[in-house]
Structures are given as C-alpha cells and as structure tokens.
C-alpha cells in the first residue's frame, strides 16, 4: 500500500485556490443521481449533510442519539477560532495557520492546515447568517476572547455553549433539507460495518438500536464523521455515547489509522472524586483568560487556599511560560500540572489537583463581569463539587479530552480506501500532536461546509451515475452476517464480569501507561496486559438481554470490544514513536526542564497503521511531513 497525500502543487497560500480551479465537478443535473452516506451528525457530519443536500445530492444521515441535535459537539463550551482579525490585533490567515502548526508541534500536514485557516472566516459568516447567537458588543458587532497557544483574540463564542449553538445551526440547516426530502435521517442507528465493493467503499451495515434490525445501505460514497475515540480511556470529558466503532470497523476493512497515540489531555477538568464516577467534566479553557493557576510552594501544604499567602503560592504557568502565562497550550499545561502534583504539591483530598483562582479577576473586574463571562461554568462547578468558585479557587486536573489521531486521509479528506471520506475529529488531519483550543469546532465545520463539498465531487465525477451497487449483493450479505455473528457471540458469552468492569480496567491501563507521560517499559507492559484483558473479555463478559430490541448493554459491549483492539494500537504507536512531541511525552526524550524533545530527522512523519488481524502486528506506513513554508523550530512558549 502506498499513501499519496494528493497535496496540490504551487505555493502554500495558493494551493486551495488552484485546487478548486482544477478539480472535477459534477453537473447540477447529475448531482441528484448520487447517494452519499454520512455517518454522524456532529459539526462535521451535520454541516456536510446540509451542504451536500443543498447542492443537490441525496444524503442518508445516521446517528446513534435519538436526534441529530444531540451529537457530542453539543457539549463544546468555549468557542471557535477564525482569522477574522475583527479585533485589529494582528491576526491573519498565516498567523492562525502558524499557531496551529506550532501548536501541533510540527506534526500536521502543512497544506491541510493552511486551507483550514483560509476557510475559517467563512464559517463565522455562515453561522451568523443561520442565526447562531454569537456574543456581541453593544454596537452589534461580534466579540472575541482568547484561547491557549495564541497571542491574539480570535475566538468567537456563544456564552459557554458555543458547541450547542453551532450544532443547532447545522441541525437547523439539516432540518430544512430533511423537510425538503433531500436528507433521509436515521436516528438511533449505529453503523457496525463498512462495505467494500470492487475495492471502493460503497455502503454500510447498521443496527436499528430500537428494534435491533440489521440493515444494509448502499451509496456512491461513504463519509464518516463519527467523532473521537477518547472514551477508550473510560474516564474522559466525552459524552458517554462517543465511540470508535465506525472508524475501527473501517480500519479493519482496510482504512489506515494515523497517529492513534496522539490523545489530548485537557488541563482544566474537575478532578476525579470517586470510583463510581462515570465521566469527567471539562471547565472550559476560556476560564484561563481570567483564572490564574497555582499550587502551594511547600510540599504537602494542607492549609485552605485562602490561608496561603501570596508569596507562598507558585503560579507555575506564569513562572515557566511568561509570554503565554496561563494561556500556555494544553499539552504543556497538563504536563506542568502533573509535575507539580508528582512533586507532592497537588491540592484537594487526593493531591491530584491544582487551583484555578479567580480572586484577582473578581477584584479587578468585579463579580458581575466574571459572572457574565463564566456564570454557567461556575454553576456547573458548583453542581458537581458543591463548592463556590467565586469564594474559593476551583480545583482542576487534566483529563482525556480529544483525539488528534484518527483515520488517515489525503488532501481530499479521502482515506486510502477510495470512496471513504473521513471528516471532523474522526480523521487525523489538522492538529498534529496537539490541538489548540477552539480549533476542533473550526475544523469540523471547515470540513463539512467548505472542504468536503468540493473534494467529494472530485471523486464522484469518476463514478458513473447509477453505477452504485444494490444493497443486496454478496458483499453486503457477508458484512451483515459478520455483524450478526459478532452480536450473537457477545450475547452468548454470559460470563461473570460486567462490561463496565472491563472498560474501567482498560482505561486504567491506558491512563497509566499511555497518558500524560509514556516510557518504553510501561508501554511494553501495556502491550502484554491489553491482549490478556481482551481474551478474558471474550470469555467472561456478561452481556444481558437480547439482540431484538433496545439493549444498551449490547451497544456498550460492542464498543468496549473495539476499544480492546484499538487500545493495543494506541500503545503500539506510542512505543514506535521514540521521540517526544506535543501530547506524546516519552520520558526518555525530554529537555532538562521536562519539555518535549522532538526528533525531526527520524520522526517527522504521520504514522499510518494498516490492520493485519486482531492481535497481529500492524504494518506501519509513513507519510513524510514536508514543510515548504515553515521552519521546524523548537516549540517555545516562554
């Protein structure tokens, strides 16, 4: 297999324009002859579905929730970046591009990231026109805030509910098309396999989550927009339903999985409080605009935060990274929090926490302004911890939050399987080894509104209208049988351990050995533990109920079974990448200050893994990352 990234020629800033000028088009009368399957209705899938339907294609859209409006994108809080330069503070397409490349520690593909920065401004225009109620100044213009890894204010927001409002924008555009009959919506339907016909992706097999019915759907192209796989770690900030099943099953059908070990750990989440905990809650990065992060200077200082005088506090981000201070990027802030906790200076009962303090902001701005900016986050913090963050600092700790890795795609956002496109968090394309805050929403909407609608035409134009297979060919029947067999196998085990017990165990292995810091010995140990756990799962898991109705245990079991395979790949990738970069700190490779030491000579590539069988060693294919416009530099935020 050879990976071809299909990066267009010409200077970086002209590539996308040149590309659009020369790609193949599908004429308006032919568009309605093509069916496109889009799995996922988050920002990526929702925007793609609406836009392709507006263009005239027939879209079939799938999601696991009861309504497309509930996709996990709904939970995004802080904001969305765009190079509008409305603040006149020196922002530009190049600066957003460069910040993103640098933020990703020079492990992303230059051409894709530049395109992302180019279309970012259009996203804000589109969303505003749809009625997304962005925060405004009194004069009626849009307002901005700052996010980590940037020295300009380019983040647009709608209170603390930016993801919700952007998603409702996509959803309303989808609703218009569903009403018009150009999108057929399948809610509560889970994709369980990808179907390949003559080497091209031509359909999917799904399970109706209410009736249990297994069905096949064929199309001229398949788009996966199924989000990230961070729930492999069990505890995360993701919605409980977020999962890797669609991309994992596609991987098993031949789609390469790129950089699986690039998992983002977000510095500001509410710390774990007990074993019963089912998820971790993010406190938006926007809080670091006004909140100051600190721990006591002394080890084991058990005094209440208010009793620790100013000169006995260590504002460690401001101290270590004066240029960016509390807005240092996520990977760096998380690691810094881990370091101070490892030194025994962590706060809270478990010692796994640091303070995020609004005392200064309240003195400077008044409580009312702080309330206006972050009220809903303070309320959320109060609901969960029962503590009042206006009176005492928040306690926060890093948690799994996002996955930069995902299915490998070329410049067209097409995987190595022709006809299979992957957009949003599900692909690997734009964020390298670390994503900057407010850039996932931007990428999801860029992919769906402004990139895929062009690039998919380039593929469809090569497919004869009406040539798609029917959904009852041998390939579909075989995939349906595989799906049914697997479900029956899960239901037939009737073992002694619950699905949750297995999931927690896997999460613990991944967090301990492939979390904020990784090393050879730990990774090798994880590679022994995971297959053993997987074998035990298939012999001893207890999946109650039947396949013929709503069975949430069966849904979870299928997902955990996939994590038990994916987990091994995550660790394999982390072991193979014998350098540190972004989120991936290999303890063997750090600077004396504990920062990442990249090895550009040997590792400036995207690692695309080819599946060769469960438990078998996957094949590694390297896409070299060639930088034409930026210089690979040490990533400094000092």
């Amino acid at each position, binding site marked *: 297999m050879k990976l071809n990234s299909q990066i267009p020629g010409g200077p970086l800033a002209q590539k996308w324009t040149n590309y659009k000028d020369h790609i193949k088009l599908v004429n308006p009368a032919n568009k309605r002859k093509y069916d496109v399957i889009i799995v996922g209705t988050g920002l990526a899938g929702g925007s793609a579905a609406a*836009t392709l339907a507006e263009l005239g294609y027939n879209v079939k859209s799938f999601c696991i*929730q*009861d*309504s497309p*409006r*509930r996709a*996990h994108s709904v*939970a995004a809080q802080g904001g969305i970046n765009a190079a*509008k330069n*409305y603040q006149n503070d020196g922002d530009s397409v190049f600066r957003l591009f460069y910040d993103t490349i640098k933020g990703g520690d020079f492990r992303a593909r230059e051409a894709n990231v530049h395109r992302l920065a180019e279309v970012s401004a*259009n996203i*804000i*225009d*589109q*969303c*505003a*026109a749809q*009625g997304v*109620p*962005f*925060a*405004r*100044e009194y004069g*009626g*213009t*849009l307002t901005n805030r700052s996010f980590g890894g940037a020295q300009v204010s380019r983040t647009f927001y709608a*209170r603390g*509910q930016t993801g*919700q*409002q952007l998603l*409702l924008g996509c*959803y*309303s555009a989808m*609703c*218009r098309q*569903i*009403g018009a009959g150009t999108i057929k*919506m399948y*809610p509560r339907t889970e994709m369980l396999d990808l179907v390949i016909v003559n080497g091209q992706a031509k359909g999917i097999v799904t399970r109706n989550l*209410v009736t249990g019915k297994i069905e096949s759907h064929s199309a001229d192209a398949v788009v996966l927009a199924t989000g990230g796989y961070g729930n492999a770690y069990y505890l995360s900030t993701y*919605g*409980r*339903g977020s999962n890797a099943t669609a991309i994992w099953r596609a991987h098993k059908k031949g789609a390469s999985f790129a950089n699986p070990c690039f998992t983002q750990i977000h510095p500001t989440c509410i710390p774990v*409080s*007990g074993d*019963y*905990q*089912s*998820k971790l*809650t993010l406190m938006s990065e926007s809080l670091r605009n006004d909140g100051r992060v600190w721990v006591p200077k002394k080890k084991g200082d058990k005094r209440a935060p208010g009793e620790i005088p100013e000169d006995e506090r260590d504002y460690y981000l401001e101290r270590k990274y004066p240029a960016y201070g509390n807005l240092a990027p996520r990977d760096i802030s998380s690691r810094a929090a881990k370091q101070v906790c490892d030194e025994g200076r962590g706060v809270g009962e478990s010692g796994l926490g640091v303070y995020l303090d609004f005392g200064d902001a309240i003195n400077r701005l008044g409580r009312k302004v702080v309330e206006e900016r972050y009220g809903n986050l303070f309320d*959320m913090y109060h*609901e*969960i911890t*029962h503590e009042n963050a206006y009176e005492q600092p928040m306690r926060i700790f890093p948690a799994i939050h996002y996955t930069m890795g995902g299915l490998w795609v070329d410049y067209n956002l097409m995987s190595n399987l022709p006809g299979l496109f992957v957009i949003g968090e599900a692909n690997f394309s734009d964020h390298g080894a670390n994503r900057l805050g407010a850039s996932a929403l931007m990428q999801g909407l860029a992919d769906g*509104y*402004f990139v895929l609608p062009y690039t998919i035409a380039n593929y469809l134009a090569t497919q004869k209208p009406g040539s798609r297979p029917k959904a009852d060919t041998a390939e579909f029947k075989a995939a349906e049988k595989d799906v049914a067999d697997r479900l029956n196998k899960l239901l037939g085990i009737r073992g002694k351990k*619950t699905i949750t017990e297995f999931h927690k165990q896997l999460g613990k292995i991944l967090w301990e050995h492939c979390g904020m810091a990784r090393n050879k010995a730990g990774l090798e140990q994880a590679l022994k533990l995971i297959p053993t756990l997987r074998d035990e799962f298939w012999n001893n898991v*207890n999946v*109650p109920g039947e396949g013929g109705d709503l069975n949430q*245990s069966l849904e979870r079991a299928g997902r955990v079974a996939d994590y038990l395979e994916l987990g091994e790949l995550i660790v394999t990738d982390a072991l193979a990448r014998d350098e540190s970069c972004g989120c991936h700190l290999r303890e063997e490779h750090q600077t004396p200050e504990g920062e990442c030491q990249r090895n550009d000579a040997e590792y400036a590539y995207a690692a695309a893994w080819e599946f060769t069988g469960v438990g078998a060693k996957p094949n590694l294919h390297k896409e070299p990352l060639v930088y034409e416009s930026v210089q690979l530099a040490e990533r400094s935020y000092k």
Partner: protein
Amino acid sequence: MNITLRVWRQKSRHETGHFEEYEAHDLNPNMSFLEMLDVVNEQLTKAGKQPIAFDHDCREGICGMCSCVINGEPHGPENKVATCQTYLRSFKDGDTITVEPFRAAGFPLVKDLVVDRSAFDRIMQAGGFISVNTGNAPDANAIPVGKEIADQAMDAAQCIGCGACVAACKNASAMLFVAAKVSHLNLLPQGQPEKSKRALAMVNQMDEEGFGACTVTGSCEAVCPKGISLSFISKLNRDYLGAMLFR
C-alpha cells in the same frame, strides 16, 4: 447513604408496565443520579436481571438526552438542572425515590425510561431554520445585532430540547419548546424574512403531533433545566396572531 428506588419497567410500548423496587447501598452523596442508576444496573446485571434502559449522553446538562421524572417532577427536585445534573445530596439517606419516563401522548414510550421525542425534530423540520445555503452568507459583521437582542435570542436558543416542559404540563403541551425555537430566530434580524411563515408552520406541526393546548400555567418554566422564560410564549402568540392576520 442507602436509597430505595421504585423504577418504571416496561419492555415496549405494546406491553404493560409496572414499578419494580431496588435497593441501592453505600452510595456517595456526591454521586450523580445517573451514576446511581449505573450502580443499580451493575447490580441487576450481576444478578442475571435486565438493566434499566435510560437515555443519557453528555451527563453535563447540554445534550438534552436524559429524561426522567423523579418523584413526580421532570428532572427531579432541583431547579434549572437536568436529570444528569441531579446529585444524591439532594436526597436523604433512607429515601424512597420513584423514577418514571416522561409521559405524554406526543412522546410514545420506547422502553423503561426511554421515550420517542422525534416529534420535536418534525416541528423543527417544518420551519425551525433560516433558509441560507452554505456559501451565501455576507460578512458576519455586515448584519449588526444589538447586544440586548443577541442576549435575548441566546436566552431562547439555550433550549436543550429535552421535553421536560411537555412532561410537566397537564395538557402535555409543547408551547414552551416551540416558543423558544421560534423566538430565537424571530428575534434576530436574520430571521425576519421568514418570521410569519415560521411561526405558522411550527405551531401547525406541533398541533399535528398531538401535543395539547397551552393554558399558561407555568409548570413548564418551573421544570425547564435552562430556565426558558414563559415570556417567549407571549412572543410566539404575538408572532402567530400577526401571521394569521396577514396571511
């Protein structure tokens, strides 16, 4: 703490349902209500019984998926939170808690605590959008929106579409939901061209879905996890009447 749960169990809409009692022991007051259901489901699974089906996803009050009636109140005893943001510290050790699905003609039951709220999607499909194709938009600052108007639109737009308003209403009316959705768009300058059409189409679809009439008792506002204000219902009524007059 220890809690006794009385939970509505119903295999499907075609079978009769009943309450079943479960004991949950050694619970932590900082546990969320749904985490308690997780614990009970683990117990049931281990005992070879069927776990309770309930909807949930984000577990932070924004997706609108969770939907339980707890001791007779949609989303439980606390104000302005969803079921998933309800914590055991709101209950006392030894309490018996009754858990039921959202019950309304417009929300047919699926299983146990899970109901079908697709009627809300169909109301949205009737007119809950601004007709602007991708690529057609002017510069975002070309349409100024005063801060007060933007804030009001946001107040309405916050609705998470959970359906608690319907579950709380004695007539199972969906007025608060529809009012929030219509007001969000009808308040904004971008929403003006389709303002009347939108109000008419969404109200008509609401009636078709079998939701009851609104008599403005305010029980919807009281249970709304986002505190959507009844005043949006007056606004919807004005938009609707205006649309009828000039039809």
